């Protein structure tokens, strides 16, 4: 990942944020992301983000679980070691339904959570740059990516006129790195210094 320059605008009300998002996008700026303290419904559509396919992944994991359970149990009880349980059929499908169901749910849930973590690039010991500490408290933080043509001062006053309570310019790393939150560290900073 690389470092980029961003203009950060903070809003304290989602009712102000929505029209601001619309105006910033119409004005042609590229919104990098909006960081919110909770899930604001409709914000993803306002930002033009497509629907997530996470639930499709969940379905695929689920049927994998179903298949694993049915094929595993039938191979074990009917093929590998057919034991006689009270003269009942070796292929006893109704009796396998509970475990098949449980494995479906298990595979689906575990798979989805892992996929969620992978897609969001979150894991223990992962550290990211956070544009505003109050983005997880009470501020809705809109982060706009700057290009060569962006006039930072214009953009900041544009954000203020649209209800931002605070604006800021930051140069930040957009990816993640392994780090500790009790230490202020910016990765790749030294690397950039060497290049310069």
């Amino acid at each position, binding site marked *: 990942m690389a470092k980029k320059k961003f203009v950060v605008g903070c809003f304290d009300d989602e*009712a102000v944020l929505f029209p601001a998002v619309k105006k910033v996008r119409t004005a042609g700026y590229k919104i990098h992301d909006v960081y919110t303290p909770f899930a*604001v419904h409709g914000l993803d559509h306002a*930002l033009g983000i497509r629907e997530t396919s996470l639930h499709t992944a969940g379905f695929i994991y689920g049927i994998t679980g179903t298949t694993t359970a049915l094929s595993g149990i039938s191979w074990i009880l009917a093929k590998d070691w057919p034991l006689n349980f009270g003269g009942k059929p070796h292929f006893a499908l109704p009796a396998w339904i*509970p475990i098949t169901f449980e494995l479906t*749910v298990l595979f689906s849930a575990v798979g*989805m959570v892992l996929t969620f973590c992978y897609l969001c690039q979150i894991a223990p010991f992962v550290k990211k740059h956070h544009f505003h500490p109050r983005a997880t408290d009470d501020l809705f*933080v809109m982060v706009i990516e700057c290009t060569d043509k962006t006039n930072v001062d214009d953009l900041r006053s544009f954000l203020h006129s649209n209800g931002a309570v605070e604006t800021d310019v930051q140069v930040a790393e957009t990816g993640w790195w392994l780090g500790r939150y*009790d230490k202020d560290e910016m990765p790749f900073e030294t690397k950039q210094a060497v290049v310069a």
Partner: protein
Amino acid sequence: MHLKYESQLREPLVNGDKNYHQVTEDIVRPIEAKPPRLWYIGFFTAVALLMFGVYSVYRDVTYGIGQWNLNKTIGWGWDITNFVWWVGIGHAGTLISAILLLFRQGWRTGVNRAAEAMTIFAVMCAGQFPIFHMGRVWMAFFVLPYPNTRGPLWVNFNSPLLWDVFAISTYFTVSLLFWYSGLIPDFGTIRDRAFTKLRKRLYGIASFGWSGSTKHWQRHESLSLVLAGLSTPLVLSVHTIVSFDFATSVIPGWHTTIFPPYFVAGAIFSGFAMTQTLLLVVRKVFGLQDYITMGHIEAMNKVIVLTGSIVGVAYLTELFMGWYSQNKYEGYTFWYSRAYLFSPYGWSYWGMMACNVLSPQIFWFRKMRRNLFVTFFMSIIVNIGMWFERFVIIVTSLYRDYLPSSWSVYYSPTIWEVGFYAGTFGLFFTCFFLFAKYFPVIAIAEIKYVLKTTGENYKAKMTPIEEQSLEHFAHEQAHH
């Protein structure tokens, strides 16, 4: 402008003059402050109980479970009673977080986090009993199907006991994932306002580097919804499968098709009672009365009276079938061993009836549902009653088998059986005290999400909306 509107007729779910920041303050304060004296007393009492349990279990492993008073006919006693009891308690959390999410019950947001934590700890306690009942606990891994050098001799997938292994372990895993995925954003909140280095570091690890990105929230919402959809049949399946342990046998008193719904209703019943016990204490000790309101408590009491009555209908149905089937053995179990007050275990049946069916009827009265003392008292009574229920089902069906010479009446647990049970209380409360101190006991992000619809101060501002003409109101709402 309001993004969302909810009728003022509905009771607010968050009381007081709150904004987003105040919500964070209120919920994170107990984590950042030194715990009150009561917390230390409770925590160390729990640890002491846990130690006694550890010693009892150490003895079980060293001397074998012969040190329990199980006998020829009563092969399942306190251990399996306690197992079913704890699993039952572990049902409210997922019910609240999953089923009530699907039914869009707003009041779940205040109580879901603590109830889910309770679920996880209760299932941890439950798991101990069948594992140590195995006797040679070091061979417990034999229940897992893995290719082995004994044949390979596989486990019996047709056995309800193996279904239990899968059901309980799946339930534990999925509940844990559901709980933790909800915690990640809240850990992010604690991390970003932490002022000590250690807290910043540890909550930084726990928060997985959560940033609150819109895309991440979108995925998070999708994840919660699908996990809720998966957990809903899961929670019903778990106690159904536990009931199969009994229902698929041919013991009079167990061989009953009504067991699955009856067990599930009972599980929800006891789970909600335990949630009440814990939350009434938590809201008092940590001053969270604005978030766990009278409305929440009343809603849970309604669930208690409903499920208690379902369980009551199941008891009566069993009695009816005991007579209607004209099966002598069924009749003997239900009408003599259980319902006859002066039979050896009649007291346990009537104790169960009094605690589970009769006493919760008090919650038909609104005044009683909204009375903290009555609620707390009843929550304890219900859990005593539900313990009796499992004891009745297990022991009264076993103590007189088909061979009168092996009948045994005086099954009373040894101190080590009781110690094991007490130890699981220790485990449960140790975990819960740690949770209450170090975790946000209320889902911060979810409260913020519903704040502007159901917060008291926001609701008060909705009067102008409600006073509009009908056409105007309908037009406005159609846009949201």
